[in-house]
């Protein structure tokens, strides 16, 4: 249909389009011809700008609040209404939130915006009381971002109000979110972490305790070894080392926590290192109380090269192995083998001669083999006729034996040897005559039965030694020959023959054999040749020397911690090497050859048995040690081991900058400690920041030496009291003391020392006489000498040494034994063979040892006095020599002083020779190590500890500082002009400690502090860290924040 023809009232679409076009053109024309819009936007503008200004204000408020919170961090909320607003678990963060709120409120007031009569400002409600403050705190949320180096702040419900002529024209509430680059959260968290790590013991994980162990171990082990080696080390672990190590460890912890260390601390540590190095090289100088490096003291800085760290490099370590040998046990087992006596179990309690005798045991036997070739049947008792009654039966038996060619072989058994064989044919004829009766009539019948046997007879010899030796064929056995061309068991065939004739010869034996079980045997003890004894003796004596040198290696640290059992390991070692040591040949060269090996085996068994008994005692001794240590507060040996093993698990941290993500600029947290170096001496308050007056002990230390001379002397320490006072000390101890005193006297005739020495000498002489008597008695059972002669022999031997001290030493270390033997041999009519000499010497050595242990104690008091007097004189002597050298510090001086000490030489005898430490000797005489142990506790407190970061505008010094100095934190929260106490910051303080054990080989002077001070406590120890300054600091509680928060 066409449009024109359409009659319906329709509006074409195009018409609508035309209308739209016209309308839009008109509208556009209106828009473009109108001038700029003039409307009053001043309220909106004011609101916008006030909001923007509030942004800046909040930002600077946060920055200021953060600085304020860092300068006065709250770590302990006050027990006041306002203080309780801060949560106990997050006082710092809460105080920061409060500060941000207050600062923002203050700043908003100055950030109002005036625009054409409109005043717009952001505002927060005031906090006149606790509940409003709590609500205010909840409005502010903070979160650390970028590892805490920036702060994300959210303040909720900030109202922005616009007023015109005092009338509110607009109001809105917004939540402001900002990110402010201030690192205070990181500073706080790292300081807390630093503090936590400082308070960690070595078993609590990585921290100061472990680092302290790491640093003290080398000191103790190096100095202990030096002392043992004869260098003049008087105080192995002195508090000066504890101080130095603690400071080194603390610096490492600073680096761990902050990435940097305190510069003052580094300098102080360097100076102290030089000073302590000087002292240590000058050794036993009694310089423990010498002036310490003052943290801020003027002058006196060393510029010389720093000596290597004490004990670095090739110093002995707990990980090193200690060699423990069989040593004296070889002798003891040997004597027990010769003499029997108590020792091995009854079954093994074979003496040397027993072993030999029982080795030569054989058996002669006659064995038979029987074969029945014919077995006759018993004839029936047939009556001759009816009604005959058997009256009597008479049986006769006739045996005939005749040689035969065939007979069964008797069973000989695997180990027997047949000397001769016989074959017999045995016929047994049984004839029976029966008498019958019938009425009065009697008649006789005869009958017979024949049995035939073939019997083999053999004469057998068997080797039946009653001591064990490895199973090997023995040859020759029943004839002369083999080793030493000895007789072996050649008596056995003869014995067998005589047994045979005793049994009636082969015929008799055959007769007996057929009639039932036959067994004939005879034990034969072989005759031993004369050379056998000496041959076997020489052989087992050689084995003794070999066994003596068998040793095992145990970690020194394990020994030191009382967790090693060398005897058990030695026993295991011997057992493992038994075949090698017994060394049996493929084939025994005759009975003598086997006897020799049997002696070796018996000896080894004895040594092993003895070692095992020692092992049991060692276990008990270790248990005792642990129990006593625990009782004395040293912790269990397991703990000690753990401390030792974990001490290296503290990697040395690297210097590093702060990783602060995008917050801009490379930054570092630098600790500022006051004092940087924590000395053990007290420090005047005016040298310290954070302390107002008085004297202050930033660090106190206690180091307890478990075994000092002479209270822990000798094996008695194990069986007796650990710290108890012994009535006597061992002769060895007294003798060494005497020798040392003599040396010192020679250099310096001091009357006091002489008196003490004389007393000690008399006591030692008495003791030595007792030992000599017992030695003479022991000699008597072995040598054909009169009592008087024996006495003279021993006296002559003793006289080979000069002076009572050395004589007593010779008695205690066994060298007297060979002298006695030599003297004995020198006597007429006592020509001793080599074997006899060896035997005698071993015996006397053992007897000497017993004598020395049994009743040769010397009164402790006498010894003690001499020790003290000797030390006093020696110290005086050394001070005279080195007093001036001590003042001059420098490597050259150290070296010169050291050389001088070595040249003069007397010091090592006087001081290093005084025995200390606890010999690990499960039973007297089995001394395989000397152990000692130091328990170290340190307590420290920084009067002021700060961390700085280079942040901020120059007005604040361009620095953010987080300060912990124990001041009270007060803030005017309610706006009344007076600050309210919120809490305080606690000083950074710590308490930790460690245990350092050491083990040195036996003998010499042992190891330990020889200055007689068991509890070495630094001044101020009892006052537990806080000296008299505490009061003054409390009085002057800093209320520096009186003008909050813009005050600073």
């Amino acid at each position, binding site marked *: 249909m066409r*449009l024109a023809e359409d009659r319906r009232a329709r509006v074409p*679409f*195009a018409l*609508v*389009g035309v209308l*739209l*076009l016209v*309308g*839009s*053109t008109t509208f*556009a024309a209106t*828009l*473009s011809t*109108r*001038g*700029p819009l003039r409307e009053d936007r001043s309220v909106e*503008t004011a609101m916008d*700008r006030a909001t*923007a*200004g509030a*942004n*800046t204000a909040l*930002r*600077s*408020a946060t*920055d200021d609040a953060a600085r304020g919170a860092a*300068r006065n961090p709250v770590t302990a909320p006050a027990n006041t209404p306002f203080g309780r607003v801060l949560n106990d678990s997050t006082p710092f963060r809460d105080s920061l939130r409060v500060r941000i709120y207050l600062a923002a409120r*203050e*700043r908003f*007031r*100055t*950030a109002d*915006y005036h625009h054409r009569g409109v005043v717009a400002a952001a505002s927060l409600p005031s906090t006149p009381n606790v509940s409003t403050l709590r609500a205010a705190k909840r409005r502010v949320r903070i979160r650390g971002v970028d590892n805490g180096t920036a702060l994300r702040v959210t303040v909720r419900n900030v109202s922005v109000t616009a007023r015109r002529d005092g009338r509110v024209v607009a109001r809105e509430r917004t939540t402001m979110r900002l990110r*402010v*680059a201030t690192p205070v959260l990181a500073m706080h968290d790292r300081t807390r972490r630093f503090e936590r790590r400082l308070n960690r013991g070595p078993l609590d994980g990585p921290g100061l305790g472990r680092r302290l162990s790491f640093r003290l171990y080398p000191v103790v082990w190096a100095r202990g070894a030096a002392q043992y080696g004869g260098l003049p080390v008087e105080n192995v672990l002195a508090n000066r080392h504890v101080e130095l190590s603690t400071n080194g460890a603390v610096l490492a912890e600073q680096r761990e926590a902050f990435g940097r260390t*305190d510069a003052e601390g580094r300098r102080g540590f360097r100076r102290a290192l030089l000073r302590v190095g000087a002292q240590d090289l000058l050794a036993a100088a009694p310089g423990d109380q010498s002036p310490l490096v003052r943290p801020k003291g003027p002058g006196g800085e060393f510029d010389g090269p720093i000596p290597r760290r004490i004990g670095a490099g090739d110093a002995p370590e707990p990980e090193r192995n200690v060699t423990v040998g069989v040593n004296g046990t070889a002798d003891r087992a040997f004597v027990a083998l010769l003499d029997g006596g108590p020792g091995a179990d009854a079954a093994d309690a074979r003496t040397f001669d027993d072993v030999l005798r029982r080795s030569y045991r054989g058996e002669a036997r006659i064995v038979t083999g029987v074969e029945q070739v014919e077995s006759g049947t018993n004839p029936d008792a047939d009556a001759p006729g009816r009604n005959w009654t058997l009256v009597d039966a008479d049986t006769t038996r006739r045996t005939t034996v005749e040689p035969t060619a065939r007979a069964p072989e008797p069973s000989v058994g695997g180990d027997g040897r047949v000397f001769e064989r016989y074959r017999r044919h045995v016929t047994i004829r049984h004839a029976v005559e029966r008498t019958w009766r019938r009425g009065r009539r009697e008649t006789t019948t005869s009958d017979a039965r024949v049995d035939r046997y073939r019997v083999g007879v053999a004469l057998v010899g068997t080797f039946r030694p009653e001591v064990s030796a490895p199973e090997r064929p023995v040859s020759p056995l029943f004839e002369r020959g083999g080793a030493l061309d000895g007789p072996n068991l050649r008596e056995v065939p003869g014995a067998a023959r005589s047994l045979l004739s005793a049994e009636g010869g082969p015929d008799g034996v055959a007769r007996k054999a057929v009639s039932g079980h036959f067994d004939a045997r005879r034990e034969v003890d072989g005759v031993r040749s004369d050379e056998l004894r000496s041959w076997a003796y020489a052989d087992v004596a050689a084995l003794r020397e070999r066994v003596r040198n068998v040793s095992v290696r145990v970690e020194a640290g394990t020994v030191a911690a009382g967790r090693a059992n060398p005897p058990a390991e030695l026993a295991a070692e011997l057992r493992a090497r038994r075949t090698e040591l017994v060394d049996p040949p493929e084939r025994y060269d005759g009975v003598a050859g086997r006897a020799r090996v049997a002696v070796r085996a018996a000896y080894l068994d004895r040594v092993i048995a003895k070692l095992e008994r020692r092992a049991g005692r060692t276990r008990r001794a270790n248990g005792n040690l642990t129990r006593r240590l625990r009782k004395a507060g040293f912790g269990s040996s397991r703990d000690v081991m753990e401390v030792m093993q974990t001490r290296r698990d503290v990697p040395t941290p690297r210097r590093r900058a702060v990783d602060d993500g995008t917050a*801009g*600029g490379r930054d570092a947290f*630098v600790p*500022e400690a006051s004092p940087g170096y924590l000395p053990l001496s007290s420090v005047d308050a005016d040298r310290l920041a*954070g302390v107002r007056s008085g004297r202050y002990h930033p660090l106190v230390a206690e180091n307890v030496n478990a075994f000092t001379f002479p209270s822990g002397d000798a094996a008695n320490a194990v069986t007796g009291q650990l710290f108890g006072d012994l009535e006597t000390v061992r002769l060895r101890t007294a003798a060494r003391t005497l020798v040392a005193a003599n040396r010192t006297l020679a250099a310096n005739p001091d009357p006091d020392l002489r008196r003490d020495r004389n007393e000690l000498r008399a006591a030692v002489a008495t003791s030595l006489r007792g030992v000599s008597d017992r030695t003479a008695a022991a000699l008597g059972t072995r040598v054909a000498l009169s009592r008087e002669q024996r006495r003279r022999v021993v006296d002559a031997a003793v006289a080979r040494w000069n002076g009572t001290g050395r004589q007593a030493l010779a008695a205690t270390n066994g060298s007297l034994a060979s002298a006695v033997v030599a003297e004995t041999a020198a006597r007429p009519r006592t020509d001793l063979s080599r074997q006899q000499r060896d035997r005698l010497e071993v015996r006397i050595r053992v007897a000497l040892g017993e004598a020395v242990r049994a009743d040769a104690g010397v009164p402790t008091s006498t010894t003690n006095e001499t020790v003290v007097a000797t030390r006093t004189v020696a110290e005086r002597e050394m001070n005279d020599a080195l007093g001036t050298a001590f003042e001059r510090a420098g490597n050259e001086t150290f070296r010169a002083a050291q050389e001088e000490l070595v040249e003069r030489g007397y010091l090592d005898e006087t001081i290093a020779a005084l025995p200390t430490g606890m010999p690990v000797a499960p039973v007297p005489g089995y001394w395989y190590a000397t152990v000692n142990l130091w328990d170290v506790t340190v307590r420290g407190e920084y009067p*002021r500890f*700060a961390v*700085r970061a*280079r*942040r*901020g*505008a*120059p*007005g604040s*010094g*361009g*620095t953010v*500082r987080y*300060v912990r100095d124990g001041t009270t934190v007060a803030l005017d929260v309610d706006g009344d002009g007076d600050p309210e106490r919120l809490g305080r910051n606690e000083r950074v303080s710590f308490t930790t400690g460690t245990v350092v054990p050491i083990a040195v080989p036996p003998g010499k002077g042992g190891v330990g502090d020889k200055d007689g001070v068991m509890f070495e406590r630094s001044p101020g120890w009892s006052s537990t860290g806080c000296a008299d300054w505490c009061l003054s600091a409390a009085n002057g509680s800093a209320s520096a*924040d009186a*003008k909050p928060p*813009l*005050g*600073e």
Partner: protein
Amino acid sequence: MTSTTLDVTLCLLLVSAAAFTVVTAEQPPSVPAQSRADATANVLATSTASVNYTLAPGAGRGDDSSVRFGRTRGPAFRRTARGTLAGLLADVTVGSAEIDGVPLSRMHEDFRRGVTRAVVDALADPARTQVVAVWRPYPSSSLAARTVVGAPPPPDARVRAATVDVPSGLPATRDEAVVASDAAGDHSRTRHADEFDAVADVVATNAVTGLFPERSARINIDGGGPSPALARTRYRRTAAFLGVTLDDGRDDELDAAEVGAANDRLAAALSDRTARELRAEFETPADAARAVRLGRVRVIVRRW
């Protein structure tokens, strides 16, 4: 059918034309300079910047030889500051406060350069914008500070201005001053004979507290690095300008414990000077008190 197609097509064409006309209609004239100034002020108030600078100018070159620096330049002096541009301008301004045109410290010189650069970088049209930050505790105060970024407008230009007030970091003192101006008159027991003195005391004390915050100064003097020397230098220079000595004539370094006493001396000297100036400027102490603006720095944006 053909006519219907034609109808619809024509309609769509016309509708498109109408839409085109509306969309391309000429907009009203562009935003005037006034809103550009406001926009710039908003930018200054809201955008942040990091400024790396060195404190070294504060050391060594000073005319005060009584404070010894271990070293006068190097990494120990490098710092970073971060904040809104307006906040940074306020920091620069207050930090480089001057007395009679002489700065109290040179520590801010490099910081000022850094902040200036940051502000210029943030401006949309630096050639036609000037930013001035002013801190003046009261009109005609000789202790004042001013930071200018950009050249002044040409004399014939039509200049629009916008302002932002930024907290200066010093205590807001006006209320306190007003109270002091009243209280001094009422109570003859106060040691201020003159109400001007009372106002001046409040102003001076707050200014010193704000410029030399006691705990912060103490911590800086006890601290490590160049902080102690810088803090001492600033004290000495200020003391010299105000004509006071800090140490009773003892030739001794300022200790942390002496900070409180030093602040008192500075405040006393500043108070005298302030009282003089207030008297010359204002008719009544109440007027003077109302004019006190210690707590804010005014940032003015000029646009042409």
